């Protein structure tokens, strides 16, 4: 039997575009995942020198029970005129891990996001039947969607589950503190490293627990 990685049951793989237009949504998803007590993982994590990107992605997928796939940027790239296949490809890897992995991985749970609920059927019809959620076009909407999805995995009698609006407000508080944090650490706020940003978010949440 394969070993279960640490915190498999609380790791959330985020498969989304890593470009400037998506950064506000990505940062909000990272905050939301942390705020509900899960741990965001993604391909931007620092890796061992020499590790192939695909190997790293496969490792992360195998270590996460949950995954968020945003297919909204599966369109022709303005610069190259070519389609971007990374997100549907990593969705396929995740679905493969769920089907061919060990007993825990068989229980993997995915949230697939797109601009419209059924648009994906036009470009990746093999996964027809998969629940795809329209994520909206604003940060509070994305926070609400991710929160509502992860909320189903928690027992409200045991843990405090913040509402989407509460997370949005907390995220705004964090955003107001972030420039000062960046200044102290000499970070470029427009080029935050994922692991550093995630660590700062976790530290902020730990110091500002939901009550």
């Amino acid at each position: 039997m394969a070993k279960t990685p640490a915190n498999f049951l609380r790791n959330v793989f985020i498969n989304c575009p890593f470009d400037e237009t998506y950064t506000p949504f990505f940062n909000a998803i990272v905050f939301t995942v942390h705020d509900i007590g899960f741990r965001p993982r993604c391909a931007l994590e620092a890796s061992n020198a020499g590790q192939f990107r695909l190997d790293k992605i496969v490792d992360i997928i195998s270590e996460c029970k949950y995954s968020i796939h945003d297919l909204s940027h599966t369109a022709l790239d303005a610069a190259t005129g070519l389609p971007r296949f990374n997100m549907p490809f990593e969705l396929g890897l995740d679905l493969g891990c769920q089907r061919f992995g060990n007993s825990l991985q068989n229980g993997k749970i995915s949230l697939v996001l797109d601009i419209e609920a059924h648009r994906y059927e036009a470009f990746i019809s093999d996964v027809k039947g998969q629940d795809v959620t329209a994520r909206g076009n604003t940060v509070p909407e994305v926070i609400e969607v991710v929160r509502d999805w992860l909320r189903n995995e928690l027992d409200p009698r045991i843990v405090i589950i913040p509402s989407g609006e509460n997370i949005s407000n907390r995220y705004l508080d964090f955003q107001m503190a972030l420039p000062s944090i960046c200044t102290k650490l000499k970070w470029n706020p427009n080029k935050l490293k994922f692991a550093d940003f995630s660590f700062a978010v976790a530290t902020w949440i730990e110091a500002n627990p939901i009550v």
Partner: protein
Amino acid sequence: MAKNQHVVPYGSEWAVRGEGNGRPTSIHRTQAEAIDAAREIARNQRSELIIHRSDGRIRDRDSYGADPLPPKSPRKVLFPPTPGVTDPDKIRTAVREVLSERGDKGNPRSDPRSDPFPPRDRRH
């Protein structure tokens, strides 16, 4: 049917085993990882978590089913598994300094009981 979850030694490692099951549900390098996994299952099934010592004796147990009003708390915050470019201690220090300067710790805007949905500009 809810099964109590046991964290038991498994060779040099640790396993989570549902009560009465022959095969372990999962195997972990450390007891802490096994406890984390078993606790999630016990919570979901509203059963008991029973932690054994390496000699098999029971070390501790937690109930997630019988208590009608368990204390609610936020979930423990999980940090990234691998460090980034910046020393984590420096990030901790910077965040705490900023919070201290801004007086954010205990900020009532973060307290849903005081004002759950304050009017804010939600444009991003």
